[in-house]
């Protein structure tokens, strides 16, 4: 770039001002610590919260187990567990109450002689699938309707938000039952039912952030560039409203897993002989009185630990991304 002739101006005579000043560059270096991005900053603060780190570890372990089982389900064997989860020829106790934990069956066997450990592992896949896919469906609906609602305002906002109110007003389980009755039992229908019912949480959460972000100057700058409404909403506004959504996702996955367990417990979720934690809890509950504690205990512990993991990670994430708690 040619330097501008500044000799006409007595103040800047002989001075060539054409590139960023050295001061600018020095300033860059003097600031010292490179400013952290959202994720790096969040991670720095999340690390100090031990409960959240424990939660994160649980989440990672269970997601890994679920993913492994998912991959294994495409192999000819169909599972990755010490025993076939649906095979019934393992040691039975004389009374048909299964056998207690042993070296070959660490979680024992159930009333049909199936290996509880293998069933629990395979069920992890179902629970993780429900958590991830149901929340993904809810997110897709919620993150389309929420930003549109917040950005346009007016009657669009009213229609979408009143619809969300209706979804909030219904008793949740009752509504899921209703949809499941209409759709019929089955894995994909569980995903759909939970997904359809929880979009309102994300839509409402996101709409609030959109309201504040749409007033930002960079949104107006994008408009002044000639960007269309949809481009502004989904490229400029939405990415700036995601921090609270990530937290809601972590919490939402835990919630979806519990809902699936409840549905399966009620008999309209996963169908036998497939295993899910809720299904196993439902099946094995009546054997507790006869003293066969191991059937019920292990799926319950897995369910509780997983949900605990997701929720404490979600809580930690919320604290770590909350600008009010920044030091």
């Amino acid at each position, binding site marked *: 770039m040619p330097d501008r002739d500044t000799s006409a101006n007595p103040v800047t005579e002989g001075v060539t*001002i054409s590139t960023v000043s050295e001061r*600018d560059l020095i300033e860059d270096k003097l600031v010292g610590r490179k400013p952290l991005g959202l994720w790096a900053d969040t991670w720095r603060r999340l690390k100090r919260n031990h409960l959240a780190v424990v939660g994160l570890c649980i989440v990672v372990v269970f997601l890994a187990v679920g993913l492994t089982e998912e991959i294994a389900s495409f192999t000819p064997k169909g599972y990755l567990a010490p025993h076939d989860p649906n095979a019934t020829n393992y040691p039975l106790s004389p009374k048909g109450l299964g056998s207690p934990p042993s070296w070959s069956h660490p979680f024992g066997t159930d009333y049909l002689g199936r290996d509880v450990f293998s069933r629990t592992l395979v069920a992890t896949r179902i629970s993780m699938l429900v958590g991830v896919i149901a929340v993904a469906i809810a997110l897709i609906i919620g993150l389309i309707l929420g930003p549109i609602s917040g950005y346009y305002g007016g009657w669009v906002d009213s229609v979408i938000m009143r619809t969300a109110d209706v979804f909030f007003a219904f008793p949740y389980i009752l509504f899921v039952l209703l949809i499941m009755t209409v759709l019929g039992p089955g894995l994909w229908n569980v995903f759909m039912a939970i997904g359809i019912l929880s979009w309102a949480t994300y839509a409402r959460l996101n709409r609030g952030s959109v309201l504040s972000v749409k007033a*930002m100057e960079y949104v107006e700058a994008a408009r002044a560039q000639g960007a269309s409404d949809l481009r502004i909403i989904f490229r400029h506004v939405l990415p*700036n409203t995601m921090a609270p959504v990530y937290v809601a996702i972590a919490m939402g996955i835990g919630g979806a897993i519990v809902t699936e367990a409840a549905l399966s417990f009620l008999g309209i979720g996963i169908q036998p002989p497939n295993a899910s934690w809720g299904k196993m809890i439902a099946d094995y509950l009546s054997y507790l009185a006869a003293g066969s504690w191991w059937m019920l205990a292990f799926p319950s512990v897995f369910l509780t630990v997983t949900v605990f993991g997701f929720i404490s990670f979600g809580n930690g994430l919320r604290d770590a991304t909350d600008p009010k708690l920044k030091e």
Partner: protein
Amino acid sequence: MGERLLTVDRLSTHFFTYAGVVKAVNGVSFTLDRKETLGIVGESGSGKTVAALSLMRLIPDPPGKVVEGSLMLGDRDLRTLSDEEMRQVRGNDIAMIFQDPMTSLNPVLKIGNQIAEAIMLHQDKGKREAWRLAAKLLDRVGIPDAEKRVNQYPFEFSGGMRQRAMIAMAISCNPDILIADEPTTALDVTIQAQIIDVIEEMQQAYESGVILITHDLGVIAEIADKVMVMYGGRTVEYGGIDEIFYNPHHPYTWGLLGSLPRLDEIEKTRLTPILGQPPDLISLPSGCPFVGRCLYERPECRDQWPELEIVGPEHGVHCWIPEAERREVRASLPHFQEYVR
């Protein structure tokens, strides 16, 4: 000067609020030629920004509305264009640089991404080509190491560099008209001078017309060819840069110039402020909005807005004070004595 780019005729923009109709811009007319710089000065609330946003049709509606006037961009009336056509105008024919570079770049998108987006919106270019152009533009506006800098986020840029990036984004589609809305207000003084230089260089290179909105008369003196002085939503005076600085005719312009510190002042004197408060834009007087603060007020000032009086080549003023008397009053003002011809 070159071809006529823009003709604004009696533009009025009002905001319809619960408290009443806010007459933010009231019958403002101006023109802009190629390679010309028009400075719009006036205090906060005088309608400078609203006038510029009206040009881009970016007034939030409701509550705002352009109620009157024509905005001719070449031979197209911007008021009659469809939303789709208007989107093509924005960024491509008229681009804007905003006041605060800290908030006018999207924090989650890389600088190069934002510039490339502007390019891809209006030009038939692929992603790779647009990014390459983005790096080139950053280099043009004087950002060193542009190849590396395009891949950085706004938080890695300092204020002055962000404003340079904003300028790169604005000129990316070679717009005919560049609107700079107080481009230096949020920057410190040393950076201000650089940014003004960059804007001027870009204007030379791209042969754009520039509308520079500011309340800093120093900036106006530096680069404007002509000046429009706004007060209370009206143009009180317009004229060439020398006319406004050396031969001002409106009492408000006198006030503005009188309240400036001067480098060549030998004796220490106090600045003369304009007394009073800016008018309430909801209940403007039917006459001159400057009544109440004007030291030379006359009975007719309150009720009727004076017609345009041509006082020189390309120099007009709206004022009831007779011209002879204006010259006399101005000659008596201490800070004008050495100027008067």
